């Protein structure tokens, strides 16, 4: 259906006027949003945007390069702690501290990529998982990182702009998110991205074709860790307070779930999955206040289950989403989108 005649046709950002139109609509919606909705929803949007950044980065690693990572909370934590420490201890400005911390995360990504060269499947899963747990444990025990008490974020000042409210932060975060998403999209269309995809499809074949496995696999880990590091640094300023207990294994699992639910190997999928799951995460935290089902669930909990454990319903919901997506639509939300598009193109035939 879309035949590509030359390279530039393949790399262009907007394949048709329709795509450009919707992109502009989306951009203007994002731009207008802070002026029309309540403060809480700005917070939700910030939360979603940060998860989108991580999911895009993780998708480069999992979806495009075909490696598994259960340790992204570790990179996320490095980004968060790195940014705060660089700002408070070394008095870096924010715009310098954030990429610097993300580069530190990328360095750790490179280091984790080295053993990953020889591992695959469950072996890689346990190695990355161990990395994530180790980072959290080490951070929680060292005085410099605030120990178990955690750290407060310093005041956020860029030039003469004081970012005090969620609304101000939104104005910083959204352009960054869009920039990073476009960056990832362009990266995939370059030589590097093609090398990643070749490694995913068959690494030995890729090596025979002249793809340097050592370089590109570690690069994939580093890029993915860089994205997670940026997101972590930003996340610290959304919460305004960080402690080691935030960066758990559950967080790594949620990141992986976002990528898988959204759709492996697609930027759109990463965005959709991250948006859906992080929105659900915030909604399900106070599930009893939800209209209609809240009362019913409360009665159910009192009669058959226990009321103290009602917040665990969110795990059940996430578990079901993950399993159903894997069983019925392995391509995730992106796959559903493609199928719907195809169906309506030929409708009613």
């Amino acid at each position, binding site marked *: 259906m879309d035949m590509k005649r030359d390279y530039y046709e393949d790399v262009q950002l907007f394949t048709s006027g329709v795509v450009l139109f919707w992109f502009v609509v989306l951009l203007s919606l994002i731009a207008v949003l802070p002026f029309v909705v309540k403060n809480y929803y700005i917070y939700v949007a910030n939360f979603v945007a940060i998860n989108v950044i991580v999911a895009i980065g993780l998708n480069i690693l999992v979806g495009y390069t075909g490696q*598994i990572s259960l340790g992204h909370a570790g990179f996320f934590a490095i980004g968060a702690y790195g940014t705060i420490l660089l700002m408070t201890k070394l008095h870096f400005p924010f715009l310098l501290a954030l990429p610097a911390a993300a580069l530190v995360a990328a360095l750790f990504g490179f280091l984790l990529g080295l053993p990953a060269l020889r591992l695959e499947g469950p072996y890689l899963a346990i190695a990355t998982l161990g990395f994530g747990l180790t980072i959290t444990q080490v951070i929680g025990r060292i005085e410099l990182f605030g120990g178990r008490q955690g750290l407060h974020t310093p005041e956020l000042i860029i030039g003469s702009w004081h970012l005090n409210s969620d609304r101000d932060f939104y104005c910083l975060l959204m352009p960054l998110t869009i920039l990073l998403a476009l960056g990832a999209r362009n990266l995939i269309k370059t030589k590097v991205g093609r090398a990643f995809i070749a490694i995913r499809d068959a690494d030995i074949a890729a090596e025979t074709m002249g793809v340097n496995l050592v370089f590109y696999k570690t690069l994939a880990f580093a890029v993915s860790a860089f994205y997670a590091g940026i997101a972590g640094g930003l996340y610290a300023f959304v919460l305004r307070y960080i402690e080691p207990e935030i960066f758990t294994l559950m967080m790594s699992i949620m990141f992986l779930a976002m990528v898988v639910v959204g759709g492996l190997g697609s930027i759109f999928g990463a965005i959709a999955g991250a948006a859906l799951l992080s929105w659900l995460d915030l909604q399900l935290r106070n599930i009893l206040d939800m209209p209609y089902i809240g009362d019913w669930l409360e009665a159910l909990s009192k009669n058959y289950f226990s009321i103290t454990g009602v917040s665990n319903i969110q795990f059940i919901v996430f578990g079901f989403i993950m399993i159903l997506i894997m069983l019925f639509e392995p391509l995730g939300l992106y796959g559903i989108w493609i199928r719907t598009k195809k169906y309506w193109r030929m409708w009613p035939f």
Partner: protein
Amino acid sequence: MIVSGIAAGSTYALMGMAMVIIYKTSEVPNFAQGEMALATSFFTLMLLEQRGLPYHLAFPAAFLFAIGLGCLLEFAVLRRAKEPSVLGFIVITIGLEMILMGLVSWKFGADPKTMPFPISPYDSIAIGGVFISSLELLTLFVALVLMIILFIFFRFSKLGMAMKATQQNHTAARLMGIRTNRMLMLTWGISSLVGCTAGLLISPITMQPYMMWDPMLKGFAAAVMGGMTSLPGAVFGAYILGIIENLFGGYVSIEFKSVIAFIIIVLVLCIRPSGLFSRHYVKKV
């Protein structure tokens, strides 16, 4: 200290064996193993406390429940997977794990419970000048007995042979008249049973919805260290892990005790990517 390391290792060994049994036959790294054991432990608690069953009825019921749960999960979920990849299996089992944990903690609440158990965890016996708690001794004993039973089962029984055949070559096993699907289901049942003994042996010490995380991950790590496809490897890895962990906790630093396990795993995997006890299969293009 070595003794308590061995005791901790026994728990890891039970979990590790349970994971190896599943991975061997179906190549599924089962992250839900710990929560299957958790569900069984809480089921036992419910039988003992709310229904007031005596031990000799409650424990066999728990074992049956474990087997049933394992078979059910395989039949209802894993068998339905369309295009199985390792990542797909990891996501599915993590999903199962979240559902089971969510259900258990929704049902029983977040506060810790106490499990009535025939042996108190605080009793201890002196053997040759070394004090060992009788629960640890029981754990060690159960692990050893199960190891021997599993060994005999896979080596000599018809069912065990059929399972091994299923693992080695699915199509050939099917052609020989083995109902491979049923074998996979039974594998899950047996593995769930092995895992649930670990859960039941931990439950007198701690009984809360997160209790199986640590043993499951350590068991998984031990199995990976041993090579994921060999039962003796998993057992050996588990004991090494338990002993090193306790020695490190005793002599170097108690704070980083649980970290050292994963550092060892990564180091071992750097040198032998497929674990200590398994041959390295080179993938064909």
